[in-house]
């Protein structure tokens, strides 16, 4: 065990898998010699050589497309998209190709790629360095979507993602790379080293995809969240004294609806939190499924606490961000009913 922040944990995950499987190949803009603009791939080129860790031309369609071809050859590519906001040029390769290959070829060809990409705001990145596009990918059959909320999970889930036989989108909440963030932007941030979940084994382990984690047990209301929002939820629960059960989804697709439904059946109330714009965000799917399964247990409407249906503004990002006030008010409303 050693202390790692999210970046170190992610780096360690790639290191461990690259050591075990020489098909694992990392490519992306600036990931090679430099080690990535967030340093997630630092040291890997030096250790595994230029043909296993290399810079790519600035072409996200090519990065994904080439990774698919490598996967068809038999490798396990781990392409990085520098910011999730820049994944759109690679969308067709992801949706029409990576996601469909096993199906359309009846398993003749498969696509075990893991697309890593930092996402989310709260770093004054403006509208093209802050987006949370995960909802889009959850609509695409054939893709898995994974989002960790702490170093321990990040490493375990990334290892599982890379080892998964199918394409996985692995979105990394960049706001919490260096420390958890409870949404109080005006307070100093604690580094990960102060947190239990930064105790990370140096070697191999994995966290199976498709399993949520109950990060706080509670009786009064269920909060569904992932990534940065897990910490906002934990903070609000603590500050408000509301006995919330907080579920960190970890994997969006396939979703651990069992754990979710069990919790909502117990609490009778549900609040969903994500940073992405509201309309047709993953919160909509969660809300739909929860009411489908738990209708007769619900004592109040399910609430969604989300980013607004606007681009992510630069200077007013804290007015966009679904922080403690927004979540706190929603919890109050849900508890009132």
């Amino acid at each position, binding site marked *: 065990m050693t202390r790692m922040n999210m970046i170190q944990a992610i780096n360690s995950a790639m290191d461990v898998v690259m050591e075990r499987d020489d098909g694992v190949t990392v490519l992306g803009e600036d990931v090679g010699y430099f080690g990535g603009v967030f340093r997630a791939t630092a040291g890997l080129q030096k250790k595994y050589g230029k043909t296993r860790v290399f810079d790519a031309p600035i072409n996200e369609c*090519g990065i994904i*497309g080439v990774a698919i071809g490598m996967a068809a050859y038999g490798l396990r590519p781990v392409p990085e998209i520098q910011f999730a906001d820049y994944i759109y040029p690679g969308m067709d390769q992801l949706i029409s190709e990576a996601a469909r290959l*096993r199906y359309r070829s009846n398993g003749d060809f498969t696509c075990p790629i893991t697309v890593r990409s930092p996402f989310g705001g709260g770093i004054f990145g403006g509208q093209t360095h802050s987006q949370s596009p995960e909802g889009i990918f959850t609509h695409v059959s*054939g893709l898995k979507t994974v989002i960790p909320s702490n170093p321990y999970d990040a490493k375990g889930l990334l290892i599982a993602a890379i080892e998964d036989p199918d394409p996985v989108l692995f979105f990394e909440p960049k706001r919490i790379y260096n420390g958890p963030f409870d949404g109080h932007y005006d307070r100093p941030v604690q580094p990960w080293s102060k947190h239990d979940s930064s105790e990370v084994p140096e070697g191999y382990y994995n966290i199976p995809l498709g399993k949520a984690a109950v990060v706080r047990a509670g009786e009064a209301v269920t909060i569904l969240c992932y990534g940065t929002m897990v910490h906002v939820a934990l903070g609000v629960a603590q500050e408000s004294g509301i006995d919330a059960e907080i579920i960190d989804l970890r994997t969006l697709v396939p979703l651990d609806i069992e754990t979710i439904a069990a919790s909502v059946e117990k609490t009778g109330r549900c609040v969903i939190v994500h940073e992405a714009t509201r309309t047709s965000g993953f919160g909509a799917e969660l809300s739909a499924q929860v009411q489908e399964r738990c209708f007769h247990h619900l004592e109040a409407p399910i609430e969604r606490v989300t980013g607004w249906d606007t681009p992510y503004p630069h200077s007013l990002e804290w007015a966009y961000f679904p922080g403690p006030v927004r979540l706190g008010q929603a919890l109050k409303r849900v508890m009132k009913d």
Partner: protein
Amino acid sequence: MADEPGRNLRSLSLHVPEPKYRPGDKVSFDDMPLPEAGSVARPDIAAAPNTLRDYPFTLIRVLDPEGKAVGEWNPRLEPDRIRAILRAMTLTRAFDDRMFRAQRQGKTSFYMKCTGEEAIAVSQAFALDRDDMCFPSYRQQGLLIARDWSLVDMMCQIYSNAGDRLKGRQLPIMYSAKEAGFFSISGNLGTQYPQAVGWAMASAAKGDTRIAASWVGEGTTAEGDFHAACTFASVFRAPVVLNIVNNQWAISSFAGFAGGENTTFAARGLGYGIAALRVDGNDALAVYAATEWAAERARSNHGPTLIEHFTYRVEAHSTSDDPSAYRPADEGQHFPLGDPIERLKTHLIAIGEWDDASHEALKAEVTAQVRDAGKEAEKLGTLSGTAFNHGFETIFEDVFAEMPPHLKEQMEQSIEERRVAGV
């Protein structure tokens, strides 16, 4: 700034390309520049791309008007090998004809012919190694046929029938045959191009000896995937043969809408510093020679080659298309490069290795072969709007390696639905 007040500027105007001939026009290709067979030199396979800058602007041709094979690009194939190529081309055409009729008879939803383009896929399959990996578009059925893939297997796919390995999931002709080194065809144009480059990069990274090849139509060169592929191929000197089949048309749009008015498609290679050849696509020996050159180049770590195959789409785009609405019905007849099968046949006759009788016998033989395969395939069913050739559970399989809970649930729901509907 440069503007002087009162400067009298001419109005701009927008150029919108227009093909030379539309329905009703009299067609002539007399002014098409056609270098003579044998006139182009064959460079060393290790030649640096910057020494090859003229190649995109000529046309490599081996067969002269009398059917003799001439010049440095003559691949000097054994007669047996040429006959094998001719056979595969003839078989491809017979296959197309039968499957086209099958679609018209309502046995399937869709079909696409490659008539007039058989030399390309077939000759290339012969020039590549059997285990080189092909990333085709939808008009390279000749690859599978040249690699002796089962016609019945192909037909079952077209019929989405019980024998379809792809379980009826894919549109007809969207084959996948890993064993034949034939990548799963996508409906989205051009996506296979960067994938081929990635496969070739992986092969190189692993110190393998196999190379990759891919095909797009001239219309598809406009897609971003084409640029992605060429950029990565150039940067990483990937061992890949990138083919552009310039058959002059992309559905109803002539090649000018892909940039063909201003330069050749082979010239795209110049932009990336990639070696690029332009070949008479109806000359099976020229296609063979260019492919062999490119393959050896790639295999010797000299990097990618882009090949433009100059040809003509003789038939409709697909069974959904009616070209008489946008081009003269007789345009193809005037196209000066002739029919690739006839040309190869003439060559074999010219060198005393073939005659009309053998050719008729060949045609009869391949027709019978296709007919027999057709009968066998039809035993396993054809596509019909109301019959279901595969169990409903097959819809849910292979979305992922392991079926996740939500798909299991949906699968059960669909099976229950089938029960209720009684189908």
